[in-house]
């Protein structure tokens, strides 16, 4: 789900009012039957002597969603990079179960509590695995008058705000003070809060304006797009905010990013090098690899690439079923893709030579009279008809090369005489302006078709 808004629609106002009144009635009749709805009651648990406190209207306290009425959080209050990645990665920040109510705005703005009051551990944390949530005995009990010193025997306070159900959603009186577990899995990354805070990178710079929000969830976790606004230093730069993947991501022994997690496989977001691994990624990855192959190497080994690019087992994601039957037509239509993995004079032609689908082959592999192309009077004999091989060669020279050797073509295209051809000029228009430099750098192809004393060759010298 990409939208930041919760899937659960908020209750209509009139229904909430009816629910509040009904809950109030139930609570007055039977305090132990009240749930986590609108009226909070003290839990009896171990603090049985405490008198019943006056009810508190939870609707005014909030703390169950980020915004009142579960309204969408303005983008300006979200962590940097949210515009590019509306939700944090599930692989990096696994889903949480938040079983408490907490109003950050109330605590920070009204009660003037700084982040450090509750999250002091962050200021000393070097590891993302550190527990940074407040310890209730240290951060909560002072005001809420509860006693979390022994988590197996928590004592509720006497006031309404000291009751278990005031904070713990689903806590019921009469159940021995048991509350639902709060599950905040360890993020799968390296992150030293201490180092960032020490560089005066304050909480809001990564988490957004939590002081404007009620409940903070994993949606307030940083986005990679936000991290990269600082992490842009090359390896040799003096700055600490290196852009290397291993700066933040967990890595394997060989230095590659760990990509497999219980919540899914990590893959690049669409905005990063435009390398989102979409359903058609295999057809698009070449532009990214051409630009920055080291980026690919952040996750993939040499072997991973070689399995397809130098593979000996046909990858079905590239070549579908029955490729053997289909490949001639595919090669005619899309030969640029063939040559990105195959050397045609060997990979293609070796098999073609064995099956006789080539001209310059052993006599036993291609029996007399067998012909692959159209009849000679259409395919090779001049003048050119619409199906003459010249058009095919112009469009698709690589397809010719996957079967034919130089000898086949020089039969006609070499000059007459010592070169043994028929003098059919294959050169493109404008060839003369380029032949001199080509001859200078490598005379071999010229000499295949031209005698060294050929006047035409001399004109290129």
């Amino acid at each position, binding site marked *: 789900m990409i939208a930041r808004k919760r899937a659960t629609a908020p209750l209509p106002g009139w229904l909430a009012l009816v629910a509040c009144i009904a809950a109030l009635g139930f609570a007055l009749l039977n305090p132990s039957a009240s749930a986590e709805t609108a009226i909070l009651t003290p839990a009896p648990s171990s603090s049985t002597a405490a008198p019943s406190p006056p009810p508190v209207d939870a609707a005014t306290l909030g703390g169950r969603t980020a915004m009142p009425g579960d309204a969408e959080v303005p983008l300006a209050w979200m962590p940097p990079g949210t515009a590019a990645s509306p939700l944090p990665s599930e692989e990096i920040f696994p889903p949480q179960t938040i079983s408490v109510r907490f109003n950050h705005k109330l605590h920070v703005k009204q009660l003037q509590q700084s982040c450090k009051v509750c999250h002091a551990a962050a200021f000393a944390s070097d590891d993302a695995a550190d527990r940074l949530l407040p310890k209730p005995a240290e951060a909560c009990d002072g005001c809420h008058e509860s006693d979390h010193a022994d988590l197996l025997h928590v004592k509720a306070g006497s006031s309404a705000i000291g009751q278990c159900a005031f904070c713990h959603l689903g806590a019921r009186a009469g159940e021995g003070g048991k509350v639902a577990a709060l599950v905040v899995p360890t993020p799968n990354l390296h992150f030293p809060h201490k180092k960032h805070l020490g560089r005066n990178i304050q909480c809001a710079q990564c988490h957004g304006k939590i002081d404007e929000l009620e409940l903070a969830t994993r949606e307030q976790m940083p986005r990679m797009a936000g991290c990269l606004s600082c992490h842009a230093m090359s390896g040799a730069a003096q700055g600490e905010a290196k852009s290397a993947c291993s700066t933040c991501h967990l890595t394997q022994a060989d230095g590659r990013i760990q990509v497999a997690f219980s919540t899914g496989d990590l893959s690049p977001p669409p905005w990063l090098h435009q390398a989102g691994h979409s359903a058609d990624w295999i057809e698009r990855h070449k532009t990214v690899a051409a630009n920055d192959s080291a980026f690919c190497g952040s996750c993939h080994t040499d072997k991973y690439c070689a399995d397809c690019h130098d593979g000996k087992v046909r990858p079905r994601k590239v070549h579908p079923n029955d490729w053997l039957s289909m490949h001639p037509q595919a090669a005619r239509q899309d030969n640029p893709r063939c040559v990105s993995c195959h050397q045609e004079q060997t990979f293609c032609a070796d098999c073609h030579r064995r099956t006789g689908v080539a001209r310059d082959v052993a006599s036993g592999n291609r029996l007399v009279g067998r012909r692959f192309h159209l009849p000679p009077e259409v395919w090779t004999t*001049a003048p*050119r008809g619409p199906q003459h091989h010249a058009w095919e060669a112009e469009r698709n020279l690589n397809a010719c090369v996957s079967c034919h050797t130089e000898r086949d073509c020089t039969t006609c295209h070499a000059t007459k005489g010592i070169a043994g051809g028929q003098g059919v000029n294959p050169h493109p228009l404008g060839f003369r302006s380029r032949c001199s430099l080509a001859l200078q750098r490598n005379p071999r192809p010229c000499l295949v078709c031209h005698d060294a004393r050929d006047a035409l060759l001399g004109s290129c010298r």
Partner: protein
Amino acid sequence: MRDCLLARRLTWAAFATVLATLSPARGQAADFEIQADTALQGYEVASPWGDVVLQRRRFLQTVGLGVYNLQGTNRPGEADYRVVMMMRLNADFGVNAHLYDKQSGGETTYATPGGNGVRFVPGLEPAPLDLMFGYIEGRNIAHGLLGFKLGRQYVTDVLGWWAFDGGLVRVTTPFHVQAEVYAGLEQRGGLPLSTTRFERQGEWRGSHAGFGVGAGLPSVTDYPAYQYAEPAPAVGFAVESSGPRWIHGRLSYRHVYNTGTSVVSMFPDPIGGGYRTVAGTRTSQERVGYAAEVAKNDLGGLKGGFSYDLYNQLVATYFGGVEVRAGQRATLGADVDYFVPTFDADSIWNWFTKSPVTSITGRAAIRFTKRWDATISGGVRLWRVDGDPTTFGVEECKAARKEPDCTSVPSPGTSIDPSTAGDPLTAAQPWSRLAESRIVTTTLDALGNLNARYRFGSGNISLRGMLQAGAQGSREGVDVAAEKNIDGGRYTLGARTSLYGWHDPTRPDRDATSFGYVLSSGFRPMRVAHFRLEWEHDMNRLVGQRYRVLGLINLLVLK
């Protein structure tokens, strides 16, 4: 004797030095990775005429070794050293399997009782062994300033995917620029532990072991197009941006040289009967390329690149694309891709008339949910030729003083058979060489692709549909595949079915519609091992039924 002893001692000293270099320091632990993949494949390949049926009984074995963090403890951003290598045996026990009696062994043996070379395929190896890669690498040396690789390694950039044996040094500056320089020998088929995969197109090279001039030996001049494999020195450099992720560019240059002797004559000299050769160092390829990308995270991005062939003196490839984020679920884009064939500088085909192929496509990628996404793209492929195929021949007939429809009535006079006297081409060629006779005409192929997938916790379902249709024929079809992991991935079940059709106007007798399916199952008895078995069954009117069995064993040990 003393020299021999000295040489032996030096050898041992060198070996000990290498070991000491590669061994982790005392008290420090390197990380080891051993990987082995085994693939067994069995299927048949028939010639179009059906009378040569190759038995493919393939056995592939790769063994990889990686030793990481030779320096000891790995600390991100600090220097680390590693050695990685992978060897491969790619055997086909089906080579020669279809040959019997007098021709037995004829594909790899020149002289058989059935005659010399009647089945011989030069360069065909039943079980080639190659080193895919093997190098020692240092990274982040001198506070991230330096890096190096030494050995057989890949280079991937806008010039393609390439491998060489040699050294590469990378310098990363504090100024968001890094540079790398490399030199060595291109990996060439026919040389020890090498494949032809990384050579430029257009040359048929390989080992001439077993060739000679004696009776029963294949001669070089029997196969003049089959060239010697010689070392190919290569140098290159790249300048690349580093650091910021919103912009990146890489400029690449590479120059590879051919060395040694090459046969030039494709036919014996009509006078002396000999074959001419050239020898010496000459260009194999010299290319420069640049690729770049710039993106704004919440809006989209631009990317593009090109390669220029300095030997051919032309732009060989270029590509470009734009992507726009259309809301939180969709990305829209447009791409262009241009390609004109270029070859090894030894090849004659660089100088044949050839035209570019250009593809222009639009694309939409939609992420419906985290699990379900789809992409759809469509566009055109442009084929260009110099001249108009429908009228060119008529005009040639006129120029040859023939009837305008002479192409439809073959006659001895229109033949280019060397024995034919009065070659009409002589009269037609001046016309065909005129620029005004070569006005570029363009034909189109329509392209369409649809990809969709649904990923759930223990598996996935994917669909791929494609269409390419136009004057060059058509190809269209769809694949549907599904995979399901059971018991936390201990067992895997998979299936794939496909339906494809194709039409080739130049060979209408090869049109067909094919249906195929694949069933597969996997088993992971322990964390380090995975076994997989696949059964493929394809059917079409050309081959009837074709079966393929594939067995895979993957082992991976980390320590």
